């Protein structure tokens, strides 16, 4: 599947390149990437082309970490450049056929070989269990029900709790029916084994078009919402003139609707005006004064309001903790360089260089994210990761109050990371939220919220 690597300098006009030590090569690559991005940002394409050409002689998807990172970033930059010719771009991508099975497989590998998902599951489940103490009817909503492992573990724990198992309902949201069916099958089997009264309710829907009515939250049941690396995609709906109407939601103030309309503009206009920030100017909302620095984003705020309206007992959110939503390309480039460098280092420590799984993860998971962050704008740029503080602000604005994660949850997470036997992973606590880091670079954050008022 992957082409056999040819040493970069084999037919290169720059024979001196192969004398570069890996460290120098790495530094040079960083330099070239930034140079190229600057050129791209200012529109000097031929310079960007030169830089990309130089990069091509040094970078390689199966070289060392920096070489791999450079190859994906340079691909992203090239993608960005190519979008200047929409016809060429579309033609170039016209025969692309994403294979669902491969995508699922890659996510499974991400779950297995890197600890992030597992730690998120462990902490989320613990927060849910603690919130549901004493509850007899528990309803859990999973905003992206691809990995049933989390709920299998929850089923096991709930059936083992001293006061006896509750009646458990899980509602899974996903775009694809097949994925939900697979999840349902696994979970139902697990519940049957343990004699836990269980129901699975699939909701086939895109996240941004989710209608909360479909979630069928009943009165009298204790609700938990779990979102793992999903909410940031909703930030894309505010930029880029996405005209999809807000899903009918309870409790959405009129001001949100108004803001949504002011946001709209065509993608072309955005490019023309060199305006990436599609946020409308901040509107007067009751609690906006401490948040005046943050642009208002009606879609996500409305969404969170709707979730708030469901009165969950606990909402556990896992998000990437890095600012990839900057207005300028250079901001995003530098932040994402650090972030993905750390992720690629994680992979380096987890799998050997020749590993196909690693190559696939780098290409199909991280490479695609990088491409999205660097090359796309507006509504297409869905990987809008933001820092934990910003998310916390948003949640508070929507009426949620933080539930500090318990010491026990953190302990379990620590043990889990220790089992990976890799010194790079660190876990730290930040105002009640848990952040998983690689060498002091925060990567993933987990936090729990409940209705404040």
């Amino acid at each position: 599947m992957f082409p056999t690597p040819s040493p970069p300098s084999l037919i290169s006009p720059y024979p001196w390149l192969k004398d570069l030590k890996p460290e120098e090569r790495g530094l040079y690559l960083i330099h070239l990437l930034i140079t190229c991005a600057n050129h791209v940002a200012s529109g000097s394409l031929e310079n960007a082309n030169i830089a990309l050409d130089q990069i091509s002689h040094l970078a390689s998807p199966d070289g060392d970490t920096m070489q791999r990172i450079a190859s994906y970033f340079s691909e992203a930059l090239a993608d960005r450049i190519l979008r200047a010719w929409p016809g060429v771009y579309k033609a170039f991508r016209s025969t692309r056929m994403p294979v669902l099975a491969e995508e699922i497989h890659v996510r499974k590998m991400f779950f297995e070989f890197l600890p992030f998902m597992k730690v998120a599951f462990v902490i989320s489940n613990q927060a849910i269990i603690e919130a549901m103490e004493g509850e007899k009817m528990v309803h859990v909503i999973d905003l992206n029900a691809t990995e049933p492992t989390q709920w299998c573990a929850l089923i096991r724990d709930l059936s083992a709790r001293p006061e006896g198992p509750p009646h458990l309902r899980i509602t899974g949201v996903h775009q694809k029916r097949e994925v939900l069916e697979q999840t349902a099958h696994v979970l139902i089997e697990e519940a049957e084994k343990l004699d836990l009264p269980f129901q699975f309710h699939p909701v086939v829907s895109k996240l941004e078009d989710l209608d909360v009515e479909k979630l069928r939250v009943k009165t009298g049941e204790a609700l938990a919402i779990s979102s793992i690396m999903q909410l940031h995609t909703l930030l894309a709906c505010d930029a880029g003139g996405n005209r999809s109407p807000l899903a009918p939601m309870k409790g959405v103030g009129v001001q949100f609707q108004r803001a949504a309309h002011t946001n709209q503009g065509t993608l072309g206009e955005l490019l023309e005006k060199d305006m990436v920030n599609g946020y409308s100017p901040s509107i007067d909302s009751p609690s906006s004064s401490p948040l005046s620095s943050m642009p208002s984003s009606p879609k996500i705020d409305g969404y969170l309001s709707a979730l708030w309206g469901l009165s969950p007992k606990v909402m556990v959110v896992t998000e990437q903790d890095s600012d990839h939503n900057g207005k300028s390309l250079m901001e995003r480039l530098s932040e994402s360089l650090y972030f993905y460098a750390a992720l690629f280092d994680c992979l380096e420590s987890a799998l050997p260089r020749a590993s196909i799984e690693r190559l696939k993860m780098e290409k199909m998971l991280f490479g695609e994210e990088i491409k999205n962050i660097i090359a796309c704008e507006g509504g297409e740029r869905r990987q809008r990761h933001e820092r934990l503080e910003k998310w916390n602000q948003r949640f508070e604005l929507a009426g949620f109050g933080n539930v500090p994660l318990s010491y026990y949850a953190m302990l379990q997470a620590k043990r889990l990371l220790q089992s990976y036997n890799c010194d790079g992973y660190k876990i730290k606590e930040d105002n009640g939220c848990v952040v998983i880091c690689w060498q002091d670079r925060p990567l993933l954050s987990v936090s729990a919220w409940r209705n404040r008022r």
Partner: protein
Amino acid sequence: MAASSSSPFLSLRDENEQPQQQQLLPSAAAAPPSAAPANKRRRNQPGNPNPDAEVIALSPKTLMATNRFVCEVCNKGFQREQNLQLHRRGHNLPWKLRQKSTKEVRRKVYLCPEPSCVHHDPSRALGDLTGIKKHYSRKHGEKKYKCEKCSKKYAVHSDWKAHSKTCGTREYRCDCGTLFSRRDSFITHRAFCDALAQESARNLNPPSLSSIGSHLLGLSQHDQMNQGALSSHDILRLGRPGQQYETLVSPGGFHPSPRGLFLHPNHDHDHQDHQNQSPHSAMLPNKSSLQSLMQLPQLHMNNTANTSSNSSAAGLFNLSFFPGNNNNAASTIDGGSHHSAAGYDSTLFSSGNLMSIAIPSLYSTSQAMQTPSGGQMSATALLQKAAQMGSTATNNGGASSSLLKSFGKSPDHHSFGGSGVYGGSNSGSGNHLHDLMMNSIAAAEGGSAASMFEQAEMEEYRGFHGGNSNSQQSGFSSLEQAGRLTRDFLGVGEIVRSVREQQQQQSGMEHLGSLDLQGKTTSHTQPFGGRSFQ
């Protein structure tokens, strides 16, 4: 599987509109079919109760009564009516054995008398009397039987017996030597055991985690390859509440050799940085790399003949900008690569050609190789180093030659280099080099700039540049930048000297974060086709 289970979901959703009873039941897709032997009582599939079964609700007393049939003569109790009848024969009382009725017997289902129980609902009734009795004792009854070895209590006698058979047959031993019969206490102990902590610190070959939990998840099947495997996964089970993540732990068992970055023998380098042998100091790259780079300036000064007082490195560059050499060298390298590269290569990488000569000489004279052990720095470390180089160079009185700092800081300077690297602006040696470079470019220009833009693959660009002059100029500026590019990169010497003075690590993040556009002032800044790519 997907196809077969699609219908239950559709039906489930439709059923939601139907009466309450149906709603509680999950799909039947997962349930196994009835047993093979035809004479065995057909079990209802869970979720589909027999609609015409007779529902029997017994009181707790009746349910728990052990001997329901009592002889009126001697008050002896019997569990079965048949036994009572036979006993009555002994008293010469009239007795009659009930025959199995000929007609089809009506199925009976039983309810749990406890109102809060799920089985209290007729749609979830149990089909077996013994079953409901056991269920009631287990869930709502008092646990009267206790295991001798452990402290587990049971309400149902048979459960208790079954447990005592297996209890204690599995023993756990911690690495520190303590024995445990109970899994949960073993786990708790392991979590805090000192010996374990030391072992994991020493452990170079990471254990592949067992898939003890993973079989439940259908995850990877990697075997336990190391001794430590059992321990490391057991660590995670801190008793029942902790059970949840035992099953989550199976990272595919794949940790390849070592904290990989360093212990890979690097074929390119004979020497290793001895200070960095510990695998767990994988992330001390800055120190080691600093040390390694520190050797450079001394070498610079030793080897190169300085034409300018300011910079030792400048001397290096003097070598690099001799156009004649470069052109020849470049043209010979031509084969195989695209022609467009040939022209501008001669100037762009002219320095490179000689760099290749110069640098190895630098390195060969050094006593130790300049790279950290194994020559593998992690990407994170490289970024920090790059940013650090940027920051320190800037702090050196405005010499913003560095890779990264320059972008945000000096709008009035050229795009990358800022003022001359070497302690001055364009006067003096800087200018000299500058002129030299321009000359070389001019000389090569006949081939280079034009060739760059006349190549087939470059034609698209031309259209947007409005003529040759523009393109030449832009080519020029890009060459200039590129030249400075390489120059800056090689300006390691200057930077490293200052780095040594500033040992502490600066967070590169803020520096990188300060990148913005103002640094770009190339002559050719016309946005491409009216759009910018920002």
